[in-house]
């Protein structure tokens, strides 16, 4: 068996492959639903209704999509340059820590000054956190996959230490949680009385900005060149290591914004369950979007919809909500397979 490059597919074919991947994912999920003793059609209908069937559901889906847009962008940027940042989870938490450190009264300023300051410091913290593995990669040849993965565990223990130590809320009845951020550090809600907050707008703006950087700037071109073929890029005079550093800073900064927006926009304080794996899910979001920053918005809303819908479905149909995680993981694998099949033809001889 061998693979042969295909001519660039037309629009219909380009759309057919991802749709095929989603169909395959639904088929596999149906099988699991049957095993769990429920009807697939009923379950998928409930998931759809739970994700988009009412204003409440839609708002909830967009709220859940917000951190996923940030982590999805972080992964998309890094993977473009083949910098395997699997540490978005850690960068998210460091961004959240920064938000709490500056936002709980340490700095007194009006919202218009305080929020940008916190955002910048959070991004800087996340950027520096990924700079470490990037330097280890370029200077010492240490694989960044393992270092970023291990840093996730280190950072979460570090956050746990802070929440039981210097950042602990004295009024928290002993729970490991931080104080709430002051009113000036909170992001406004987009709709009165609903959970959707200004972080969603920042996420969309970030996606557009990332798209511009990737498509319209020299840096974006260099990133893609490094990702495509680092040797050729070096030969063409592109400073590969410096491009990787800059990519790491951008990627880490974007992931940290997820932590910032969850604390300043939604939760108000930092706890150890701030992120149910948004950093890892960001990898799926980025791959579903084929690493396109604007696609990340769509992919994040899609993935968030599955999670929110599955929660609602689980309450009424009794199928465990872990079906959402299975679907998301399956979608990742079917999607990368579909992308490959859209570019290559399998010859069996």
């Amino acid at each position, binding site marked *: *068996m061998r693979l042969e490059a295909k001519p660039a597919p037309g629009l219909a074919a380009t759309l057919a492959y991802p749709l095929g991947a989603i169909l395959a994912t639904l088929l596999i999920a149906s099988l699991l639903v049957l*095993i769990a003793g429920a009807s697939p059609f009923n379950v998928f209908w409930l998931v759809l209704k739970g994700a988009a069937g009412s204003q409440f559901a839609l708002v909830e889906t967009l709220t859940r999509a917000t951190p996923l847009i940030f982590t999805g962008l972080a992964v998309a940027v890094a993977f473009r340059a083949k910098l395997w940042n699997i540490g978005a989870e850690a960068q998210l938490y460091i961004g959240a820590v920064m938000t709490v450190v500056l936002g709980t009264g340490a700095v007194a300023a009006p919202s218009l000054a305080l929020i940008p300051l916190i955002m910048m410091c959070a991004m800087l913290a996340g950027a520096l956190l990924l700079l470490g593995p990037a330097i280890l990669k370029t200077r010492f040849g240490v694989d960044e996959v*393992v270092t970023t993965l291990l840093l996730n565990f*280190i950072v979460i223990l*570090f956050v746990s230490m802070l929440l039981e130590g210097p950042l602990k809320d004295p009024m928290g009845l002993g729970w490991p949680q931080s104080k709430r951020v002051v009113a000036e550090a909170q992001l406004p809600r987009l709709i009165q009385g609903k959970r959707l907050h200004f972080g969603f707008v920042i996420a969309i703006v970030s996606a557009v900005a990332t798209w511009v950087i990737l498509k319209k700037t020299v840096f974006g071109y260099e990133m893609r060149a490094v990702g495509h073929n680092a040797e050729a890029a070096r030969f063409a005079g592109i400073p590969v290591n410096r491009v990787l550093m800059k990519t790491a800073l951008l990627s880490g900064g974007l992931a940290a914004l997820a932590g910032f927006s969850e604390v300043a926009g939604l939760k108000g304080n930092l706890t150890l369950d701030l992120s149910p794996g948004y950093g*890892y899910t960001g990898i799926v979001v980025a791959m579903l979007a084929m690493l396109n920053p604007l696609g990340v918005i769509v992919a994040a809303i899609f993935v968030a919809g599955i999670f929110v819908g599955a929660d609602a479905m689980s309450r009424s149909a009794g199928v465990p909500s872990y079906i959402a995680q*299975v679907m998301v*993981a399956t979608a990742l694998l079917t999607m*990368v*397979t579909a992308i490959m099949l859209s570019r290559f033809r399998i010859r069996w001889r």
Partner: protein
Amino acid sequence: MEAFEILWQTSFWVAAIRIASPLIFATMGELICERAGVLNLGIEGIMTAGAFAGWITVYAGGDLWTGVLVAALTGAAFGLLHGVLTVPLGLSQHVTGIGITLLATSLTYFTYRVALPEVTSPPKIEPFQPWAIPGLSEIPLVGPALFNQTPLTYLAYVVVAVVAWMLYRTPAGIAVRAVGENPAAVEAQGISVTMIRIGAVMAGSALMAIGGAFLTMSAFNSFFFEMINGRGWICIALVVFGSWRPGKALVGAILFAAFDAYQVRLQQVTGGVIPYQIFLMMPYVLSILALIAVARRATYPKALMVPYQKGER
């Protein structure tokens, strides 16, 4: 100094060898995959699936060795998936591996909830018991640590010997090493690179799953969510640290486990002056430091992460 007295405690060495066992299985598994040229980041999820599969088999009435077998087969199944996606289809080994981890983990949690919908705390099984080897287990300090462990721990050492022997002394093992270094040369011998690589990934994944099963069937007696807790990622570091050699990787795993057992005891000795999280961080920090230490002279298998296409140069 109490901190040094720990080293003379029998219980410390017993714990070190026990903690090393799952790492040894999984490290050997990852080593086989990487020697064949395939990075397997599915390790964390495959260990989770193995831990669950072995445990639920015993809980459902199977005997312990059947549980180990079911765990191995579960691992091999995920290995087959990883192998097919990365070898003939040539998909990114990073992305596919992370996908396998996400899939294996979520499928395990889903199955757990479907199989045991009502339970609040996971049921316990009767795990493997230590087998004292007559005579040898009486030796002070070393005896109980090495010769009074469960059969699965003994199996871990047998696996290291078998893997080392196979990789260096059998045609199959030499083929595995060769596809990781120079696949075109292997194909020229009329051997299928695809088959060797998929086979190696399946065998390696089976070992990872047994490593996971060790936790639920020997070290503990129950299955908990997130019980693998990064052990898989540490094993990937151990493979690099052991420069892809079974013997060195074994030494690395034991050193690492000794350190892990030591930090738990040091935590008790220091009596809460230092936050416990610092101690829990140490194994992960140590893994990163070990990687930095060996990075300069690491000799990766040459074809690691390079997909092979027949007829391509």
